[in-house]
């Protein structure tokens, strides 16, 4: 268990002119759980494989503790890895697959049994220990692969899409148990995933990657409340953030629909965005409050916008409402049942601090929240 530090790490594959990983730096603390999040081809897996030692590092350094590990063989790095394709040993029973790395060392038999039992209980693998991997379902194989990595004593744990195939009924439970296990044992962990829900559920900090570049590295709260750019804003959150183009008018932002016609207005301080003509604005669905028309007066300094309910889906513990405002479409999430029927008129109350402003061209965040 150790810190893991990447300094200006880049990867260029032979025959390619582009950097698959471009100057990535991050300092992962001892016992910290972080996620590398992005869609396929963003460089997250290449980064993980460089840490594991399966890919050479084109430039930059990777350290575990104070040791530079760039040139060490994978077996000398003392990292545990769970592979996306599971990579189980088919002729070995599940029990021996899990215990494999322990058998190599000088761990006592009783100790091995104890640890295998603990980790397989945690991952609900008990009844499968005497089976062979080819007889297991994909989700079960993935759990064995996870167990094999978690059972080890390693300086760092690298998990490549560790829960993509898990049975939906077990996912929430295993997520929580694994997070508890990793926290309890202060395991320095890097999780690679394309699923932002999983990244946010498990990690202390999330590194969002796109096109080989680190877009933002922060806590889930940072990503949610202060996305660094449009990419992060559109990637984080389910449903994703509502994004629009807006023109800056005197004392208001005029939000445009897809065709460029004004759809609604959000009041702001005169001169707040002086010098800019166009902006991108983002509104997180979870921060929009729905109210009946006429109740709006209590809004205080919040933006009040009338709209029409286009859809209203109740999902048990929360609701998604689709609201049409002029030619614009907005998704709002409520914590409970929303009474408004399709076609009815509502007033949206959007707190000023829930409106995110991005530069129209660079996509970089300009402000999180309008000034009151």
């Amino acid at each position, binding site marked *: 268990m150790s810190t893991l530090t990447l300094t200006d790490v880049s990867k260029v594959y032979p025959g390619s002119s582009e950097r698959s990983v471009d100057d990535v730096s991050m300092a992962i603390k001892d016992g910290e759980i972080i996620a590398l999040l992005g869609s396929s081809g963003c460089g997250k897996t290449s980064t993980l494989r460089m840490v594991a030692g399966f890919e050479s590092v084109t430039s930059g350094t990777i350290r575990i503790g104070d040791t530079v590990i760039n040139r060490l063989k994978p077996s000398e790095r003392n990292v545990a890895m769970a592979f996306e394709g599971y990579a189980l040993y088919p002729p070995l029973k599940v029990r021996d697959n899990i215990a494999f790395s322990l058998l190599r060392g000088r761990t006592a038999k009783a100790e091995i049994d104890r640890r295998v039992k603990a980790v397989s209980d945690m991952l609900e693998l008990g009844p499968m220990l005497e089976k062979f991997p080819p007889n297991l379902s994909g989700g079960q194989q993935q759990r064995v692969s996870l167990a094999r990595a978690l059972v080890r004593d390693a300086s760092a744990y690298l998990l490549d899409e560790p829960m993509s195939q898990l049975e939906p009924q077990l996912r*929430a439970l295993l997520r929580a148990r694994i997070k*508890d296990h990793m926290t309890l044992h202060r395991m320095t962990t890097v999780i690679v995933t394309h699923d932002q829900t999983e990244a946010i559920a498990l990690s202390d900090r999330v590194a969002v990657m796109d096109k080989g570049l680190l877009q933002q590295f922060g*806590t889930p709260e940072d990503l949610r409340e202060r996305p660094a750019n449009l990419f992060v804003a*559109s990637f984080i959150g389910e449903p*994703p953030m509502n994004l629009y183009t807006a023109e800056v008018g005197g004392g208001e932002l005029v939000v445009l629909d897809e065709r460029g016609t004004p759809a609604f207005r959000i009041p702001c301080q005169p001169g707040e965005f002086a010098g800019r003509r166009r902006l991108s604005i983002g509104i997180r669905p979870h921060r929009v409050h729905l109210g009946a028309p006429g109740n709006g007066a209590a809004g205080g300094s919040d933006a009040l916008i009338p709209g029409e309910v286009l859809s209203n889906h109740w999902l048990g*513990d929360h609701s998604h409402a689709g609201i049409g405002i002029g030619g614009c479409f907005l998704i709002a999430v409520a914590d409970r049942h929303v009474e408004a029927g399709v076609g009815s008129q509502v007033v949206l109350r959007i707190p000023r601090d829930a409106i995110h402003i991005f530069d129209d061209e660079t996509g970089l965040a300009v402000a999180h929240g309008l000034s009151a």
Partner: protein
Amino acid sequence: MAYLSVEALSKAYRRNEVIRDLSFEVERGEFLVVFGPSGAGKTVLLRLIAGMVLPDRGRVVLGGADITRDAPDRRDIGMAFQNFALYPHMTAYENIASPLRSRGMARAELDGRVHGAANLLRIDHVITHLPKALSNGQKQRTALARALVGEPSMLLLDDPLRNVDAKVRYEMRLELPRLLRARDTTVIYVTQDYKEAMALGDRIAVLGDGRFTQIGSPETIYNRPADSRIARLFGDPPINLLDARRDGAAELRVASNSVALPVRRSNTVASDCVLGVRPEDVAVSLEPVAGAVPVEIDAVTPLNDRQVMLLRADDGTEIFASRPQSEQIEPSAGNAHDGIGRGRRRAWATLDIERAHFFETRTGARLAEPALRPELAR
């Protein structure tokens, strides 16, 4: 008279009955979602209705006509597939035009209809492309346009949003019902995602072991699940199923703690049962609360702006609790910035027994609820 009626349908593959004696009806213009875990027989059911697979027994009646043995091309059914099933050697235009071509429609009318469907699904700008040049979202829109353009009276949608990205999935979830309601199309929609089922279905049919274990509105299925298996399928994190034992006249023993049993429930529970408590009905406090179960918070795993907590009672029982982020108990519970000293912490969980479900221990069936006495009914 129902528009589609399926009567005692059965289909076996090598003595394994995938569909068992299945009967149901769909009204004209209804949106029925067939929901079930993978391998439950959803795809076989759709293929039986589409005519790709013939049943061993039973009948399929569409609009009053028995179509059980009709060839697929004579059924007036449109279908969209999870893997899109576009014709890779034809442009998007030709894909969409295919159902009209089979009718020998005049060129001008065909052209108008294809463009109309493409406009409706907002793919008019990519209509000359081959499928391989389309994004997954555009592929699925093309497939939907193809299914809709012939204005079939029945539409089968086989998990069509499975392979598209989150943004498109949300757009389509909201667009689809409007699109279909305008045409009064009867829809059977298959999915493995309970949220999709609840969002889209007028009714949801839960498929398990080749038969429907429950058919009802999303409200019915969520609030009054027929058994504990169904209850577990709807909700994320899933419902807590806790073994409970009757303990005296007005108490229930759960997780080695006593919980007060509501008066109206006192006749429901004989000796033991399984108590189903949804995570949103578990309140967590860091201070001791009377009647609450003492627990440890093992882990906090945020889920889409909800704070999800895994609690462990002293006897090892695991309980999920979930609440909106806006009402979270600690600003950064489990997510301390320094990443150190997170650890477990003591807490007290109150189970909302009024909203709990009661299931039989052995079969998992929902225990009958006594009729509300007038003075208790609202």
